[in-house]
C-alpha cells in the first residue's frame, strides 16, 4: 500500500460526497453527503501523517523524539478535530432541519425556496 492508494480513496470519497451534496433533494441525505466529504479529508490527513516526513524532521534528525509527537501526529490530530467539529455541525444541522420541518412540514430542498425568484 502506498500513499497514492489512500489519496485515491479520499478523492473518490470526496467526489461522491460533493456529488451527493449538490444533487440530493432530502436535507438529511445532503448532510450525510457533507459528512462523507469530511471523512474523505480525514482519510487524506491520516494517510499523509503516516507517509510524509515533515519538513522540519527532514532537516534535523538529532532531536527526533521531541519533534515526533508534535509533528508526525499533526495529521491525526487534524482528523480528530475534524470529527469533533463535524459532529457539532450535524447536531446544529439536524436541529435546524427539525425547525424547518415544523414550520413547513417538509425537508425537501426544492420546496425550501420561499425567497428564490
Amino acid at each position, binding site marked *: 500500500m502506498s500513499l497514492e492508494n489512500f489519496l485515491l480513496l479520499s478523492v473518490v470519497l470526496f467526489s461522491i460526497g460533493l456529488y451527493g451534496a449538490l444533487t440530493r433533494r432530502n436535507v438529511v441525505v445532503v448532510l450525510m453527503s*457533507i459528512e462523507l466529504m469530511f471523512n474523505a479529508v480525514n482519510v487524506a*490527513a491520516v494517510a*499523509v501523517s503516516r507517509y510524509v516526513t515533515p*519538513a522540519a524532521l527532514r532537516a534535523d534528525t538529532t532531536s527526533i523524539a521531541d519533534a515526533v509527537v508534535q509533528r508526525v501526529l499533526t495529521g491525526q490530530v487534524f482528523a480528530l478535530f475534524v470529527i469533533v467539529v463535524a459532529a457539532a455541525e450535524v447536531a*446544529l444541522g439536524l*436541529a435546524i432541519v427539525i425547525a424547518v420541518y415544523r414550520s413547513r412540514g417538509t425537508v425537501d430542498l426544492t420546496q425550501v425556496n420561499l*425567497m428564490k425568484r
Partner: protein
Amino acid sequence: MTAHDLYLLAPPIALAGVGGLVVLLDLVTRRTGLVAAVSLLGLLLPAAFALALWGDVNTGGAMAGVFDTLVVDKFALFFQFLVLAVVALVILGAADYVARFQRYKGEFYALVLFSALGMMLLAAATELVSMYISLELTSLPLAALAAFLRDERSTEAGLKFLLLSAMSSALLLYGMVLVYGYTGSTQLGEIAQAVAAGGQPFGSPAVLAGGVLIAAGFGFKIAMFPFQMWTPDVYEGAPTPVTAYLSVASKAAGFAVLLRLFSTAFGAVSLDWGMLFAVLSALSMTVGNLMAMGQSNIKRLLAYSTIAHAGYILVGVAAMAVREPAGSEGLGLSSVLFYLGAYAATNLAAFFAVIAITNRTGNDQVDGFAGMGKKAPVVSAVLAFSLVSLIGIPPTAGFMGKLYLFNAAVRADLVWLALVGVVNSAVSAYYYLRVVKALYVSSSESRATVPSSPAVRLALGVSGLGVLFLGIFPAPLLGLAEAAVATLLSLR
C-alpha cells in the same frame, strides 16, 4: 500551555466568560435590558486586555504562543478591536428587535458573543487546524442566529447558511490537507519555506489545488463570486441585526484570515494567485452590482451590494499580491484594512436605519420606505448618507476607502482593475439612489411618524458619525492599518 499563553489568549477568554455569564444571567433575571447591558459592558473587558496586548506588542514586537498556533501582532489586534466595536454596535442596534422575541433573549446575545470569539481567534491563528476550528466557531453560532426567529423564512436562511458553510468548510479542509501533505506542516511559516523552496510555480500541482480550494472555502465566507449564491437568501431571511453582523464582522474576519494565509504561507508565489483574485474581484463587483439593480427588497439589495463590496476589497488583495513598487509596499494591504473599517461603519449605519424603520412598518420592500424623509427625518438622513458612502461620494468613509483601494491598484499596475471599480461604483449609484428617491421624493398616504428607541438611535448616531469622521479625517484609522500590516510585510 503557560501563563504567557493565557495572557495572549486573554481577550478571547474574557469574551467567552462574558458569553457564559450572559447565558447564566438570563436564567435568573427577567429584566430585558439587563442582559443586553451586561453583554455590552462586558465587551470592555476583552477590549481592555487587547489594549494591554497592543501596548506590549508596541514595545516588544509580535508574540507567538499556544504551541505556535497563534500570534498576537498588530494585525490580529486591529481585527480584534474591529470585531469588538462591531459587536458592541450590533448589540445596541438589536435592542428593539430582540425585545420582540418571546424567549431566548440571553441566548441571542450569547451566540453573538461566541461567534465574535471565533472571529477574534481567526485573526490571530497562524496554523491551519486552529484556523479551521476558529472558522467553525464563527460559522456555527451564525447559522443558529440566522434561524433564530424559527419562522419559515428564518429557518430557511439558517438551513441554507449551514449547508453551504459546511460544504465550503469541506472544500477548505481538503485544500488544507493537500497543502499539509505537500509541505509536511500546518504552520504558516513552515509552509512558506516549503513553498518557496519548491522552485516551480506554486510549488506543485498539489499546492496549486490546495490554494484554489482554500480560496474557494474563504470565498464563501466573504461572499465572493462565484461563491455568493447563499448571500441574498440568508440576508433576507435572517433577523436584520444578524444580517448586519454577518455582512460586516463575518466578512472582516474572513478577509483577516485570507490576508494572513495568502500573504504569509503563499507570499513567495504571490504573482500566481494575484491575478486569480484580480479577476474574481472584477467579477464580484460586476455581478453584485448588476444583480442588485432588479431588487425590490432592501435586505436583498444590501446583500447584492455586499457581494459587490467584497469585489472592491479584493482589489486591494490583488494589489498586495502583484509586486508593489518600492515606496508603496503594503499599500494594498493597508487599504484593505482601512476599507474594512470604513465599510463596517457604513454598512452598520445602513442596517440600523433599516432596522429602525422596518421594525415599525414591518415592510422590507423599498416601496415601504416611501415618504420616510418626513416621517423619520433623522433615520432617513443617516440611511441616505450611508448609501451615499456605499456609492463612494465624498465626504464619506466609502469615498476615502475606495480612493485608497484604487490608488493601491494603480500603483501596482492594475489600472484596468481600478477602472472596472470606478465604472462599477458609478453603476451602483443607480440602485442606491433609488432607495434615497423612495425616502425623499415618493410620498405615502399615512402621515404617522416612525419613532425609534434610544438604543437604536445611539447605535445609528455612532455609526453615522463614524462614516462622516472617516470621510473627513481618515488619517487615524489609516495609521492603525499601516501599523497593522507592517508585521505581515516583515515576514515576506
